[in-house]
Protein backbone atom coordinates (compact mmCIF):
# COMPACT_ATOMS: atom_id res chain seq x y z
CA UNK A 1 0.00 0.00 0.00
CA UNK A 2 2.76 2.38 0.91
CA UNK A 3 4.36 2.00 -2.54
CA UNK A 4 1.02 2.77 -4.21
CA UNK A 5 0.74 5.97 -2.21
CA UNK A 6 4.19 7.04 -3.28
CA UNK A 7 3.42 6.31 -6.92
CA UNK A 8 0.27 8.43 -6.78
CA UNK A 9 2.16 11.22 -5.10
CA UNK A 10 4.84 11.33 -7.81
CA UNK A 11 2.13 11.27 -10.44
CA UNK A 12 0.46 14.28 -8.84
CA UNK A 13 3.77 16.12 -8.78
CA UNK A 14 4.44 15.48 -12.45
CA UNK A 15 0.95 16.53 -13.51
CA UNK A 16 1.35 19.67 -11.44
CA UNK A 17 4.59 20.47 -13.22
CA UNK A 18 2.99 19.99 -16.62
CA UNK A 19 0.12 22.20 -15.57
CA UNK A 20 2.54 24.91 -14.60
CA UNK A 21 4.10 24.78 -18.06
CA UNK A 22 0.79 24.81 -19.92
CA UNK A 23 -0.43 27.68 -17.79
CA UNK A 24 2.72 29.68 -18.52
CA UNK A 25 2.37 28.98 -22.22
CA UNK A 26 -1.21 30.09 -22.12
CA UNK A 27 -0.21 33.37 -20.53
CA UNK A 28 2.55 33.94 -23.06
CA UNK A 29 0.18 33.20 -25.93
CA UNK A 30 -2.51 35.51 -24.64
CA UNK A 31 -0.15 38.42 -24.13
CA UNK A 32 1.27 37.98 -27.62
CA UNK A 33 -2.20 37.49 -28.99
CA UNK A 34 -3.32 40.94 -27.93
CA UNK A 35 -0.73 42.57 -30.16
CA UNK A 36 -1.24 40.17 -33.04
CA UNK A 37 -4.98 40.65 -32.89
CA UNK A 38 -4.63 44.39 -33.11
CA UNK A 39 -2.37 44.05 -36.12
CA UNK A 40 -4.76 41.62 -37.78
CA UNK A 41 -7.71 43.84 -37.12
CA UNK A 42 -6.11 46.93 -38.64
CA UNK A 43 -5.15 44.85 -41.64
CA UNK A 44 -8.44 43.09 -42.16
CA UNK A 45 -10.40 45.85 -43.91
CA UNK A 46 -7.54 46.37 -46.35
CA UNK A 47 -7.48 42.67 -47.18
CA UNK A 48 -11.23 42.65 -47.68
CA UNK A 49 -11.32 45.79 -49.82
CA UNK A 50 -8.35 44.70 -51.88
CA UNK A 51 -9.85 41.33 -52.62
CA UNK A 52 -13.27 42.76 -53.30
CA UNK A 53 -11.91 45.45 -55.61
CA UNK A 54 -9.97 42.87 -57.59
CA UNK A 55 -13.00 40.58 -57.69
CA UNK A 56 -15.09 43.34 -59.17
CA UNK A 57 -12.42 44.11 -61.67
CA UNK A 58 -12.23 40.44 -62.62
CA UNK A 59 -16.00 40.33 -63.00
CA UNK A 60 -16.07 43.33 -65.29
CA UNK A 61 -12.91 42.57 -67.12
CA UNK A 62 -13.09 42.10 -70.87
CA UNK A 63 -9.44 42.45 -71.54
CA UNK A 64 -7.18 39.46 -71.89
CA UNK A 65 -4.00 41.03 -73.15
CA UNK A 66 -2.25 40.91 -69.79
CA UNK A 67 -0.71 37.67 -68.63
CA UNK A 68 -2.52 38.02 -65.34
CA UNK A 69 -5.99 38.25 -66.82
CA UNK A 70 -6.01 35.17 -69.01
CA UNK A 71 -5.90 31.48 -68.23
CA UNK A 72 -2.42 30.21 -68.94
CA UNK A 73 -3.41 26.60 -69.46
CA UNK A 74 -0.73 25.45 -67.04
CA UNK A 75 -2.24 22.73 -64.87
CA UNK A 76 0.08 23.15 -61.95
CA UNK A 77 -1.26 25.05 -58.96
CA UNK A 78 0.86 26.98 -56.52
CA UNK A 79 -0.20 27.03 -52.89
CA UNK A 80 1.03 29.63 -50.47
CA UNK A 81 0.63 27.99 -47.09
CA UNK A 82 0.86 30.28 -44.12
CA UNK A 83 1.19 28.19 -40.99
CA UNK A 84 2.78 28.31 -37.59
CA UNK A 85 6.35 28.11 -36.42
CA UNK A 86 5.66 25.90 -33.44
CA UNK A 87 3.33 23.10 -32.47
CA UNK A 88 1.19 22.79 -29.37
CA UNK A 89 -1.57 24.81 -30.90
CA UNK A 90 -4.26 22.18 -31.14
CA UNK A 91 -5.28 21.35 -34.67
CA UNK A 92 -4.08 24.66 -36.09
CA UNK A 93 -1.44 23.37 -38.50
CA UNK A 94 -3.11 20.06 -39.25
CA UNK A 95 -6.40 21.65 -40.22
CA UNK A 96 -4.53 23.86 -42.64
CA UNK A 97 -2.75 20.94 -44.30
CA UNK A 98 -5.91 18.89 -44.45
CA UNK A 99 -7.75 21.70 -46.20
CA UNK A 100 -4.94 22.13 -48.69
CA UNK A 101 -4.90 18.40 -49.51
CA UNK A 102 -8.65 18.44 -49.94
CA UNK A 103 -8.47 21.42 -52.26
CA UNK A 104 -5.56 20.00 -54.21
CA UNK A 105 -7.29 16.65 -54.82
CA UNK A 106 -4.08 14.94 -55.99
CA UNK A 107 -3.42 17.46 -58.73
CA UNK A 108 0.18 18.55 -59.36
CA UNK A 109 1.32 21.49 -57.29
CA UNK A 110 4.19 23.63 -56.11
CA UNK A 111 4.20 25.17 -52.69
CA UNK A 112 5.47 28.32 -51.09
CA UNK A 113 5.49 27.55 -47.38
CA UNK A 114 5.67 30.35 -44.83
CA UNK A 115 6.46 29.22 -41.30
CA UNK A 116 8.45 26.33 -39.91
CA UNK A 117 5.65 23.78 -39.74
CA UNK A 118 4.56 24.16 -43.38
CA UNK A 119 8.20 23.90 -44.46
CA UNK A 120 8.61 20.67 -42.50
CA UNK A 121 5.37 19.38 -43.94
CA UNK A 122 6.51 20.05 -47.52
CA UNK A 123 9.80 18.28 -46.87
CA UNK A 124 8.01 15.27 -45.43
CA UNK A 125 5.66 15.10 -48.39
CA UNK A 126 8.53 16.03 -50.73
CA UNK A 127 6.55 18.72 -52.49
CA UNK A 128 8.39 21.04 -54.79
CA UNK A 129 8.79 24.41 -53.10
CA UNK A 130 9.52 27.79 -54.62
CA UNK A 131 11.52 28.95 -51.63
CA UNK A 132 12.02 27.94 -48.05
CA UNK A 133 13.46 31.25 -46.98
CA UNK A 134 10.52 32.33 -44.85
CA UNK A 135 10.86 30.19 -41.79
CA UNK A 136 9.39 32.46 -39.17
CA UNK A 137 5.85 33.63 -39.75
CA UNK A 138 6.15 36.05 -36.85
CA UNK A 139 9.04 37.89 -38.51
CA UNK A 140 7.53 38.38 -41.96
CA UNK A 141 7.43 42.12 -42.70
CA UNK A 142 5.78 44.18 -45.42
CA UNK A 143 8.99 44.27 -47.42
CA UNK A 144 9.31 40.48 -47.16
CA UNK A 145 5.85 40.27 -48.65
CA UNK A 146 6.98 42.35 -51.59
CA UNK A 147 9.91 39.98 -52.09
CA UNK A 148 7.53 37.02 -52.03
CA UNK A 149 5.19 38.77 -54.45
CA UNK A 150 8.01 39.47 -56.89
CA UNK A 151 9.14 35.87 -56.70
CA UNK A 152 5.61 34.60 -57.30
CA UNK A 153 5.08 36.92 -60.25
CA UNK A 154 8.36 35.80 -61.78
CA UNK A 155 7.44 32.13 -61.41
CA UNK A 156 4.01 32.80 -62.84
CA UNK A 157 5.42 34.47 -65.91
CA UNK A 158 7.82 31.61 -66.44
CA UNK A 159 4.87 29.25 -66.46
CA UNK A 160 5.91 27.26 -63.41
CA UNK A 161 2.33 27.39 -62.22
CA UNK A 162 -1.01 28.44 -63.68
CA UNK A 163 -3.11 29.05 -60.61
CA UNK A 164 -2.27 30.60 -57.31
CA UNK A 165 -4.13 29.79 -54.11
CA UNK A 166 -3.57 31.22 -50.68
CA UNK A 167 -4.09 28.87 -47.75
CA UNK A 168 -4.32 30.62 -44.40
CA UNK A 169 -6.35 30.64 -41.22
CA UNK A 170 -9.06 33.22 -40.88
CA UNK A 171 -9.33 34.79 -37.46
CA UNK A 172 -13.02 34.64 -36.71
CA UNK A 173 -12.93 35.23 -32.98
CA UNK A 174 -10.89 34.23 -29.95
CA UNK A 175 -12.57 30.85 -29.95
CA UNK A 176 -12.91 30.07 -33.62
CA UNK A 177 -10.29 30.16 -36.33
CA UNK A 178 -11.21 28.79 -39.70
CA UNK A 179 -8.70 27.57 -42.30
CA UNK A 180 -9.51 29.02 -45.69
CA UNK A 181 -8.40 28.89 -49.33
CA UNK A 182 -8.47 32.08 -51.38
CA UNK A 183 -8.11 32.27 -55.16
CA UNK A 184 -5.44 34.75 -56.08
CA UNK A 185 -4.30 34.35 -59.67
CA UNK A 186 -5.09 34.54 -62.53
CA UNK A 187 -7.87 37.07 -62.25
CA UNK A 188 -10.56 34.95 -63.98
CA UNK A 189 -10.24 32.59 -60.98
CA UNK A 190 -11.64 35.35 -58.83
CA UNK A 191 -14.99 35.42 -60.59
CA UNK A 192 -17.64 33.96 -58.42
CA UNK A 193 -19.27 31.49 -60.81
CA UNK A 194 -22.64 31.56 -59.12
CA UNK A 195 -23.14 35.30 -59.13
CA UNK A 196 -21.58 35.61 -62.56
CA UNK A 197 -24.35 33.54 -64.08
CA UNK A 198 -27.04 35.68 -62.55
CA UNK A 199 -25.47 38.82 -63.88
CA UNK A 200 -26.67 40.44 -67.09
CA UNK A 201 -24.59 39.21 -70.00
CA UNK A 202 -23.46 42.70 -70.99
CA UNK A 203 -20.39 43.48 -68.94
CA UNK A 204 -19.52 46.91 -67.76
CA UNK A 205 -16.47 48.22 -69.49
CA UNK A 206 -13.48 49.37 -67.48
CA UNK A 207 -11.10 52.02 -68.61
CA UNK A 208 -7.45 51.20 -68.01
CA UNK A 209 -4.92 53.97 -67.92
CA UNK A 210 -2.56 53.91 -69.83
CA UNK A 211 -3.32 50.35 -71.01
CA UNK A 212 -4.41 47.08 -69.39
CA UNK A 213 -1.15 45.21 -69.45
CA UNK A 214 0.84 48.10 -67.92
CA UNK A 215 -1.79 48.53 -65.23
CA UNK A 216 -1.94 44.85 -64.34
CA UNK A 217 1.84 44.51 -64.39
CA UNK A 218 2.05 47.29 -61.82
CA UNK A 219 -0.92 46.27 -59.72
CA UNK A 220 -0.62 42.52 -59.44
CA UNK A 221 2.64 42.41 -57.44
CA UNK A 222 1.23 45.03 -55.05
CA UNK A 223 -2.01 43.13 -54.77
CA UNK A 224 -0.14 39.92 -54.00
CA UNK A 225 2.07 41.57 -51.42
CA UNK A 226 -0.90 43.19 -49.68
CA UNK A 227 -2.85 39.98 -49.71
CA UNK A 228 0.02 37.94 -48.31
CA UNK A 229 0.80 40.46 -45.60
CA UNK A 230 -2.78 40.56 -44.41
CA UNK A 231 -3.02 36.78 -44.46
CA UNK A 232 0.20 36.53 -42.45
CA UNK A 233 -1.18 38.90 -39.83
CA UNK A 234 -4.41 37.00 -39.55
CA UNK A 235 -2.74 33.60 -39.47
CA UNK A 236 -0.46 34.74 -36.71
CA UNK A 237 -3.35 35.91 -34.57
CA UNK A 238 -5.16 32.65 -35.30
CA UNK A 239 -2.14 30.59 -34.31
CA UNK A 240 -1.80 32.36 -30.98
CA UNK A 241 -5.51 32.10 -30.29
CA UNK A 242 -5.43 28.40 -31.14
CA UNK A 243 -2.45 27.88 -28.86
CA UNK A 244 -4.09 29.80 -26.06
CA UNK A 245 -7.20 27.65 -26.32
CA UNK A 246 -5.21 24.43 -26.51
CA UNK A 247 -3.18 25.38 -23.46
CA UNK A 248 -6.26 26.48 -21.60
CA UNK A 249 -7.80 23.07 -22.22
CA UNK A 250 -4.59 21.33 -21.18
CA UNK A 251 -4.52 23.27 -17.91
CA UNK A 252 -8.13 22.37 -17.21
CA UNK A 253 -7.46 18.70 -17.95
CA UNK A 254 -4.49 18.74 -15.62
CA UNK A 255 -6.61 20.24 -12.86
CA UNK A 256 -9.18 17.50 -13.30
CA UNK A 257 -6.49 14.85 -13.27
CA UNK A 258 -4.98 16.19 -10.07
CA UNK A 259 -8.37 16.09 -8.45
CA UNK A 260 -8.92 12.40 -9.23
CA UNK A 261 -5.37 11.59 -8.26
CA UNK A 262 -5.85 13.34 -4.94
CA UNK A 263 -8.92 11.25 -4.34
CA UNK A 264 -6.96 8.12 -5.12
CA UNK A 265 -4.19 9.21 -2.81
CA UNK A 266 -6.55 9.88 0.07
CA UNK A 267 -8.25 6.57 -0.43
CA UNK A 268 -4.92 4.76 -0.38
CA UNK A 269 -3.89 6.62 2.74
CA UNK A 270 -7.13 5.81 4.51
CA UNK A 271 -6.95 2.15 3.65
CA UNK A 272 -3.35 1.94 4.87
CA UNK A 273 -4.39 3.51 8.19
CA UNK A 274 -7.32 1.12 8.50
CA UNK A 275 -5.04 -1.76 7.80
CA UNK A 276 -2.57 -0.64 10.42
CA UNK A 277 -5.29 -0.28 13.05
CA UNK A 278 -6.64 -3.73 12.20
CA UNK A 279 -3.17 -5.13 12.61
CA UNK A 280 -2.65 -3.40 15.96
CA UNK A 281 -6.02 -4.57 17.27
CA UNK A 282 -5.32 -8.09 16.06
CA UNK A 283 -1.93 -7.93 17.79
CA UNK A 284 -3.51 -6.66 21.07
CA UNK A 285 -6.07 -9.47 21.05
CA UNK A 286 -3.26 -11.97 20.72
CA UNK A 287 -1.77 -10.79 24.01
Amino acid at each position, binding site marked *: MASNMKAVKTRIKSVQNTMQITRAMELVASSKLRKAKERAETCK*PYFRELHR*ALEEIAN*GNTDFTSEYTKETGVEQTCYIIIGGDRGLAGGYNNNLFKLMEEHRAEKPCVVLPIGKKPIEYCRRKSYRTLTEAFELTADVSVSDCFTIAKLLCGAYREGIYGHLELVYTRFQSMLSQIPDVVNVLPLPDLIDRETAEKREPVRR*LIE*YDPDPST*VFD*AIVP*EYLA*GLIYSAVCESLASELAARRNAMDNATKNAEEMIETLNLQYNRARQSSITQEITEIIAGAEEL
Partner: protein
Amino acid sequence: MNTFQLKIGTPDGLLFEGEVERVVCRSITGDLAILANHTNYLTAIGEGEAHIVLADGTKRSAACIGGMISMMNGTCHLLPTTWEWKEDIDLQRAQAAKERAEKMLAQGGMDDATYKTVEAKFRRSMVRLGVKNS
Protein backbone atom coordinates in the same frame (compact mmCIF):
# COMPACT_ATOMS: atom_id res chain seq x y z
CA MET B 1 -21.33 69.18 -56.25
CA ASN B 2 -22.11 65.50 -56.52
CA THR B 3 -20.30 63.25 -54.13
CA PHE B 4 -19.30 59.59 -54.25
CA GLN B 5 -18.22 56.88 -51.88
CA LEU B 6 -14.48 56.62 -51.28
CA LYS B 7 -12.54 54.02 -49.33
CA ILE B 8 -8.87 54.43 -48.60
CA GLY B 9 -7.18 51.31 -47.30
CA THR B 10 -3.57 50.46 -46.56
CA PRO B 11 -2.03 47.57 -44.64
CA ASP B 12 -2.19 49.92 -41.63
CA GLY B 13 -5.95 49.85 -41.73
CA LEU B 14 -8.91 51.46 -43.41
CA LEU B 15 -7.90 55.10 -43.17
CA PHE B 16 -10.89 56.76 -44.71
CA GLU B 17 -14.40 55.84 -45.62
CA GLY B 18 -17.04 58.33 -46.66
CA GLU B 19 -18.50 60.67 -49.22
CA VAL B 20 -16.12 62.88 -51.15
CA GLU B 21 -16.38 65.36 -53.95
CA ARG B 22 -13.05 64.78 -55.58
CA VAL B 23 -9.96 62.61 -55.34
CA VAL B 24 -6.66 63.73 -56.81
CA CYS B 25 -3.58 61.54 -56.88
CA ARG B 26 -0.57 60.77 -59.00
CA SER B 27 -0.81 57.64 -61.09
CA ILE B 28 2.01 55.97 -63.01
CA THR B 29 1.30 58.27 -65.92
CA GLY B 30 0.63 61.53 -64.11
CA ASP B 31 -1.81 63.40 -61.90
CA LEU B 32 -5.43 62.48 -62.17
CA ALA B 33 -8.64 63.63 -60.55
CA ILE B 34 -11.75 61.57 -60.09
CA LEU B 35 -15.18 63.13 -59.73
CA ALA B 36 -18.56 61.59 -59.12
CA ASN B 37 -20.04 59.44 -61.90
CA HIS B 38 -16.66 58.63 -63.32
CA THR B 39 -16.67 55.65 -65.65
CA ASN B 40 -15.27 52.35 -64.37
CA TYR B 41 -11.60 52.94 -64.19
CA LEU B 42 -8.44 51.27 -62.98
CA THR B 43 -4.88 52.40 -62.76
CA ALA B 44 -1.75 51.97 -60.68
CA ILE B 45 -0.58 54.70 -58.35
CA GLY B 46 2.85 56.24 -58.73
CA GLU B 47 4.29 58.37 -55.98
CA GLY B 48 3.30 61.90 -55.15
CA GLU B 49 0.97 64.27 -53.40
CA ALA B 50 -2.68 63.31 -53.22
CA HIS B 51 -5.67 65.10 -51.84
CA ILE B 52 -9.34 64.57 -51.35
CA VAL B 53 -12.08 67.16 -51.16
CA LEU B 54 -14.75 66.22 -48.66
CA ALA B 55 -18.45 66.76 -49.16
CA ASP B 56 -18.29 70.00 -47.13
CA GLY B 57 -15.46 71.37 -49.26
CA THR B 58 -12.52 70.84 -46.89
CA LYS B 59 -9.36 69.63 -48.52
CA ARG B 60 -7.08 67.04 -46.96
CA SER B 61 -3.73 66.23 -48.48
CA ALA B 62 -1.51 63.24 -48.01
CA ALA B 63 1.57 61.51 -49.34
CA CYS B 64 0.46 58.60 -51.50
CA ILE B 65 2.82 55.93 -52.77
CA GLY B 66 2.24 52.75 -54.74
CA GLY B 67 -0.82 50.56 -55.00
CA MET B 68 -3.91 51.05 -57.10
CA ILE B 69 -6.97 53.19 -57.52
CA SER B 70 -10.17 51.81 -58.95
CA MET B 71 -13.56 53.28 -59.66
CA MET B 72 -16.15 50.57 -59.97
CA ASN B 73 -19.87 51.18 -60.22
CA GLY B 74 -19.77 54.48 -58.41
CA THR B 75 -17.48 53.49 -55.56
CA CYS B 76 -13.86 54.48 -55.51
CA HIS B 77 -11.26 52.24 -53.90
CA LEU B 78 -7.93 53.84 -53.22
CA LEU B 79 -5.55 51.13 -52.05
CA PRO B 80 -2.04 52.53 -51.80
CA THR B 81 0.94 50.90 -50.11
CA THR B 82 1.58 54.08 -48.19
CA TRP B 83 -0.88 56.81 -47.37
CA GLU B 84 0.13 59.42 -44.84
CA TRP B 85 -2.07 62.39 -44.05
CA LYS B 86 -0.21 65.67 -44.18
CA GLU B 87 -0.62 66.19 -40.45
CA ASP B 88 0.75 62.71 -39.67
CA ILE B 89 4.00 63.07 -41.60
CA ASP B 90 7.04 63.15 -39.36
CA LEU B 91 9.04 66.04 -40.78
CA GLN B 92 12.25 65.23 -38.94
CA ARG B 93 12.16 61.59 -39.91
CA ALA B 94 11.56 62.40 -43.56
CA GLN B 95 14.34 64.98 -43.50
CA ALA B 96 16.73 62.51 -41.89
CA ALA B 97 15.79 59.81 -44.40
CA LYS B 98 16.40 62.21 -47.24
CA GLU B 99 19.81 63.21 -45.97
CA ARG B 100 20.82 59.62 -45.35
CA ALA B 101 19.76 58.59 -48.84
CA GLU B 102 21.47 61.60 -50.41
CA LYS B 103 24.70 60.75 -48.67
CA MET B 104 24.58 57.16 -49.83
CA LEU B 105 23.78 58.16 -53.38
CA ALA B 106 26.66 60.65 -53.38
CA GLN B 107 29.08 58.03 -52.11
CA GLY B 108 28.13 55.53 -54.80
CA GLY B 109 29.66 52.08 -55.09
CA MET B 110 26.40 50.21 -54.50
CA ASP B 111 25.12 47.23 -56.42
CA ASP B 112 21.99 47.58 -58.53
CA ALA B 113 19.50 46.32 -55.97
CA THR B 114 20.76 48.53 -53.14
CA TYR B 115 20.94 51.51 -55.47
CA LYS B 116 17.31 51.02 -56.37
CA THR B 117 16.21 50.73 -52.74
CA VAL B 118 18.15 53.83 -51.72
CA GLU B 119 16.85 55.76 -54.68
CA ALA B 120 13.29 54.72 -53.83
CA LYS B 121 13.86 55.82 -50.25
CA PHE B 122 15.09 59.17 -51.51
CA ARG B 123 12.07 59.64 -53.72
CA ARG B 124 9.69 58.68 -50.93
CA SER B 125 11.28 61.13 -48.52
CA MET B 126 11.00 63.84 -51.17
CA VAL B 127 7.30 63.12 -51.59
CA ARG B 128 6.75 63.36 -47.83
CA LEU B 129 8.67 66.60 -47.54
CA GLY B 130 6.84 68.03 -50.54
CA VAL B 131 3.46 67.27 -49.01
CA LYS B 132 4.41 68.50 -45.57
CA ASN B 133 5.78 71.78 -46.84
CA SER B 134 3.02 72.46 -49.34
